[in-house]
């Protein structure tokens, strides 16, 4: 359960969670693609739930892990629709081409 490091006790779960949170945070910001961002957000949320568990609040952790897919799904559907919209948009040029066609 506990690992001895330099005389103090360090628990693994909070450590992993903190690692996940920090990495996820950096990852979410640095990635620019929507899906990558959402994956990293998932990563981040995993860390959050781990931290909640290491505070011994299991009901909050369970609730969070139930609600996490909900917001993920909303984000996914939204980003999908957004991508679709961006793709199906007409692009105009500023110059009028010489009357070809």
């Amino acid at each position: 359960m506990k690992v001895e490091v330099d005389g103090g006790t360090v628990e693994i779960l909070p450590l992993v969670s903190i690692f996940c949170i920090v990495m996820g945070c950096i990852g979410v910001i640095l990635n620019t693609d929507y899906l990558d961002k959402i994956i990293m957000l998932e990563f981040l949320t995993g860390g959050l739930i781990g931290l909640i568990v290491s505070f011994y609040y299991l009901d909050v952790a369970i609730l969070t892990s139930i609600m996490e897919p909900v917001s993920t799904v909303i984000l996914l559907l939204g980003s999908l629709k957004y991508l679709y919209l961006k793709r199906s948009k007409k692009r105009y040029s500023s110059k009028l081409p010489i009357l070809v066609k």
Partner: protein
Amino acid sequence: MDTLVLLIGVISFVVGLRVFLTRNRVQRLLYLCCLNFAIAALIALYIKSPMGGVAAAVYFIGSTLSSNAIAHTIGKVQRLEGRG
């Protein structure tokens, strides 16, 4: 027991780094699944009570569902990009 936790911890660290570093999106999702698995195991081992098992199970189910949704969307987006 300690070694087991330590092992899972090391694995999750490595996998977490892989999630962070991998370029390929599909692979990244795979590593994320692995990481979720590790965290669920850690939760179950951290709380030495049946409730810990329940929490780990719920977390596992939830993360699997969202991974599934992400995987599905990845496929969808690839199709969209392929055609558009």
